[in-house]
């Protein structure tokens, strides 16, 4: 079984684009539509890496990162923010929340896979 990646984005189209790319590289992919759902999903089924959008209903991506980092098991799990936001102040907020990296949309699937592969190999 490949490493498990949790994708959190309120757009089904974006989730599908990421899923196709990562499954092609041998990852197992879980999807959530918002931060609240992701937090619950993570506690039920932990993932090896999280990719999250920022603007989502109920719980936004930055709050999700902060909440995940409060879980002892999540201290070192890579969390990537995938967003249309590219301002330095937002990136600093992401970093302060505990994100591992920042990817500005539009993203190229190949680049995303390269970064994910560097943080978590598809097969342990």
């Amino acid at each position, binding site marked *: 079984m490949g490493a498990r990646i949790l994708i959190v984005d*309120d*757009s*089904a*189209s*974006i989730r*599908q*684009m990421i899923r196709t790319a990562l499954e092609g590289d041998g990852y197992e992919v879980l999807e959530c539509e918002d931060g609240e759902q992701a937090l619950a999903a993570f506690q039920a089924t932990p993932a090896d890496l999280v990719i999250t959008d*920022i*603007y*989502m*209903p109920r719980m936004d991506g930055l709050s999700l990162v902060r909440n995940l980092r409060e879980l002892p098991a999540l201290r070192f799990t890579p969390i990537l923010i995938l*967003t*249309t*936001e*590219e301002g330095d102040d937002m*990136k600093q907020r*992401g*970093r302060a929340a505990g*994100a*591992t*990296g*920042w*990817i*500005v*949309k*539009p*993203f*190229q699937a190949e*680049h*995303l896979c*390269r*970064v994910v592969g*560097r943080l978590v190999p598809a097969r342990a």
Partner: protein
Amino acid sequence: MVDLPEVTLHIGQVYATRTPTVVKTVLGSCIAVCLLDPVSRVGGMNHFMLPSPTHESRSGAQFGVHAMDLLIGAMQKAGAERRRLQAKLFGGGHVIQIGLNGSSVPERNIGFIEEFMTTEGITVLSRDLGGYLPRRIQLHTDSGKVYVKRLGQHALRQTRTEEKAVMRILGQEAERFGPILLFDDREVDRRVGSESAVRGGVRWVPGS
């Protein structure tokens, strides 16, 4: 009647606001999606076209997904809630290429946006798509009302010239992507500098 501020969108631009505004654009084969959240009264519009598919299996749909992602993101940032979004779809006129086969520019644009709305579960209140003439559309962001006017031969020539020029640029810009940053590391991939305002052919309009 109070004069509302006006914003004109060109191909590749996105605008969303909570301040009552008139957003205008002229469409040929391009698509403009008007979104409204009737509760927060945030309204917005984008204006995009899909590039021609390339030999690298790029369908061009990725462009549309990003244009929509930018608009929905801008709406949410302005205070809209995704589940309340309502859409009106415009454009996809046969102004560049006459022919109704499924691969023509407007048909691809129309096919994309209809499929996107279904996938995302966004309610489409109305659509004015296809035809053979350009349209001028005006969105009132607070009410979501859209006024449409069909334009004549002069506008047809102008729109066709502008869209053909953009098609050529899009072919090159399809290769532009946002930067990737790892916080504990150097930037691992920087094909596009962060100073660039162009992302996937979609450009922010300042002041939103």
